[in-house]
C-alpha cells in the first residue's frame, strides 16, 4: 500500500507491504522490516530490522489524515495521505476543492463570524476560539464562499473539529 507522509511541509513516499513478522517498508528506495505491535489504542512497540532498533511510540489519529507520534523524546505531527490526496492537496491550494477551518486546539467557541453563503477573503477572521484564558482568531486561508458552519458560540470542541467549510 502506497502512502505519502507529509512532515514539516515535505512529502515522503512510503510503500508498506505486510510480510511475516511485520511490514516491509520502502522509503527513499530503501526497504526495512518494521515489526510493529500495538499494545492498546495509543501505544506501539516498533522494532526496525536489520539492526533491531527499538522504539516505543505513543500515537494518536487526530484528524482524518493527521497523526501525532511520540517517538522517544520527540513529539512529531504528520499527515498520512493516499497518493491522490497528496496531489490534490498540493495542486488544489489556490482555488478548487473545499477548504476546512479546523480547531487547532480544544476550546470553547466564542464567536462564529460568518454564515453559509458569506464570501470570505484570505486572512478574514472566521471563528474565535477560547482555550483557558486566551482567545484565538481562526482566519480563512483563501477566498471563497462559506458552505457550511458546524459550530455555534458556546460549543466546546476538540482539536481537529471542522468548524467551517469554505468552497
Amino acid at each position, binding site marked *: 500500500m502506497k502512502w505519502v507522509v507529509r512532515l514539516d511541509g515535505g512529502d515522503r513516499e512510503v510503500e*508498506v507491504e505486510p510480510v511475516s513478522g511485520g511490514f516491509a*517498508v520502502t522509503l527513499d528506495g530503501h526497504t526495512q522490516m*518494521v515489526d510493529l505491535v500495538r499494545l492498546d489504542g495509543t501505544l506501539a512497540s516498533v522494532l526496525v530490522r536489520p539492526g533491531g532498533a527499538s522504539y516505543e511510540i*505513543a500515537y494518536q489519529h487526530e484528524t482524518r489524515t493527521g*497523526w501525532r507520534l511520540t517517538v522517544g*523524546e520527540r513529539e512529531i505531527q504528520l499527515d*498520512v495521505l493516499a497518493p491522490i490526496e497528496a496531489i490534490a492537496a498540493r495542486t488544489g491550494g489556490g482555488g478548487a476543492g473545499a477548504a476546512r477551518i479546523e480547531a487547532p*486546539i480544544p476550546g470553547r467557541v466564542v464567536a462564529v463570524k460568518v454564515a453559509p453563503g458569506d464570501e470570505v477573503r484570505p486572512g478574514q477572521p472566521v471563528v474565535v476560539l477560547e482555550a483557558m484564558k486566551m482567545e484565538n482568531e481562526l482566519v480563512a486561508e483563501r477566498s471563497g464562499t462559506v458552505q457550511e458552519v458546524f459550530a455555534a458560540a458556546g460549543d466546546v470542541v476538540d482539536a481537529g473539529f471542522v468548524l467551517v467549510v469554505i468552497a
Partner: protein
Amino acid sequence: MKLLIANRGEIAVRIIRACQEMGIRTVAVYSEADRVSPHVLMADEAHAIGPAPAAESYLDMDRLLDVARTSGAQLIHPGYGFLAENPDFAAKVEATGLTWVGPPAEVIRLMGSKTASRRLAGEAGAPLIPGLMEPIAEPGQLEAFVEEHGLPVLLKAVAGGGGKGMRRVDRKEDLAAALERARSEGAAYFGDDRVYAERLVDRPRHIEVQVAADRFGAAVAVGERECSIQRRHQKVVEECPSPVVTPEIRQRLFDAALAVVRASGYQSVGTVEFLMDRDGQFYFLEMNTRLQVEHPVTEAVYGVDLVREQIRIALGEPLSLKQEELCPRGHAIECRVYAEDPFRGFAPSPGRIVFLRRPSGPGVRVDSGVLNGTTVPLEYDPMLAKLIVWGPDRPVAVSRLRRALSEYCISGIATTLPLFRFLVRRPEFASADFHTWYLDELLPTLDAGGGPPVQAEDAPDDVAVMTAACLATLESGWLEESRGVRPESWWREGLRQLHGRFPR
C-alpha cells in the same frame, strides 16, 4: 482525626498521602469539573461544592466551612493557591474553632503586604533591594527615587505576589504612564491600587530558604532552593541545593530567613524568598506563608516530610526537626509539568489525556494530579504534575532527570515536557549558568517551528514516517480487505477508492 483539604490537583493528593501515613482521615471537596479527579478518588470522603469556576467552588469560604462542619473535620489544609494566603479565610477557620494548617491569620496578612513585609524584613536585618518603603503617594516620590538609584526600576503592586503585578520601567519618560498602568492593574487583579518601586536587579537568581517554626519559638532553616528557571516570573524548574550557594552564603541566608521568621512570629512551614545578584549579594524578596509547589526537592535532599511537619505544627506539637540534625545529601531537581505548549508561547492546552505513562525507578518521584483518560479542566491552574529526581550529586541528578523525562509520556494534550527535554541538554543547564530571565531570553531565539530543535541523538524522522505509514495501513482496513473482509466505515471506503486507482 479528620482533615479537610480546600484544594484540588497534585497538592490535594500530596496532603492526602501525608494524612494517610499519619492516620488522619481526609475530606476532599470537588467542583463539578473534578468529580473523577485523583483527590476525590483517594480521600476517605468527598463532597461537591459547586460549579467549575473557582469563585463558585474552591474559593467559596462559606461552602468550605459548611462541608467542614457537616463532615466533622477538625483541620483545614489550604494547599497552595486558592485560599492558602487569604488571611480572611484563615481567620474564619480559626473563628469556627477549626485548626488552620498554616500560620496565624495576622502573619499571613502582614507578610501579604509587599511594603509591610519589606519593612519588617529590613528591621529584622535582612538585606533589601534599594526601594521605597511605602506605597507611592504621588509621582514625585517615584521620580526622586529614580534620581537617586537610577534606571531600570521595577514597579510592584503592594498586594501582588506569585510573579503578578510587576512592571519594569527603563526610560524616565515612561515613568508616569507606567505608574498609572501599574495602579490600575493592581486595582484590577488584587483590589488594591497601591504601588511601590524597587531598583531592578540585573539577571538575578532566585534563591529561597525553606523554614519551619513551631508555637514554642523553635525555628529551623531546611536548606535553600534555587528557582531561577522561570517564565514570566513563574517558576518552571527548581532545585535543592542551589548550585551557587557556598556554605558561607548559606549561613547568611539562613540567618536572614530565620530573623524574618522570628520578627513576624511565624508558625508553620514557610519560605523566605531572596534575589541574588551576579556578585553573590542577596536581597529579601517576599515571604510565602504556605507550602510551596517546590517543597519536594527539599524533602528529597534533607530526608524530611514537610507536609507531615506542617500538620504536626498545626496540631500544637513541637518541631521534630533540629537544625544540627538537618544534613543535606545529594541534589534534587523538580520540573513542573503544565498543560501548555512551551514552543507556542505557553499556549494553554486543555483536553483529554489519552495516554499517560509516569517515570519510575531509582531517585524518581512523581506527584501527579491527573489520571489517564480524564480531561484537564479549563478552569484551573494548568499544572498537571511534578517530576522530582534525586541523585547523589548534581551531574547524576541531571542525567537521571534526562532519563526520567524520556520515560514520561503524556499524549492528547501539549505539555511542558518537550521544554524540559530540551533544557536538560543545554550546556547552561549542566553548568547551572542561569538566572530568572534566562528562559524568557532563550525561547524567542529558537528557530521554533513549534518544537525544540532536533538533537543528534533523537529518533530520526524516518522512524516516525515508517511507523505512521504502518499504522495507517493497519487502520485502513486494507489488510482485512486483502483477506476478503470488506471495509465498513466511510473513511475506509474512501481510502479504498483512492487506493483503487493505483496499482498495488
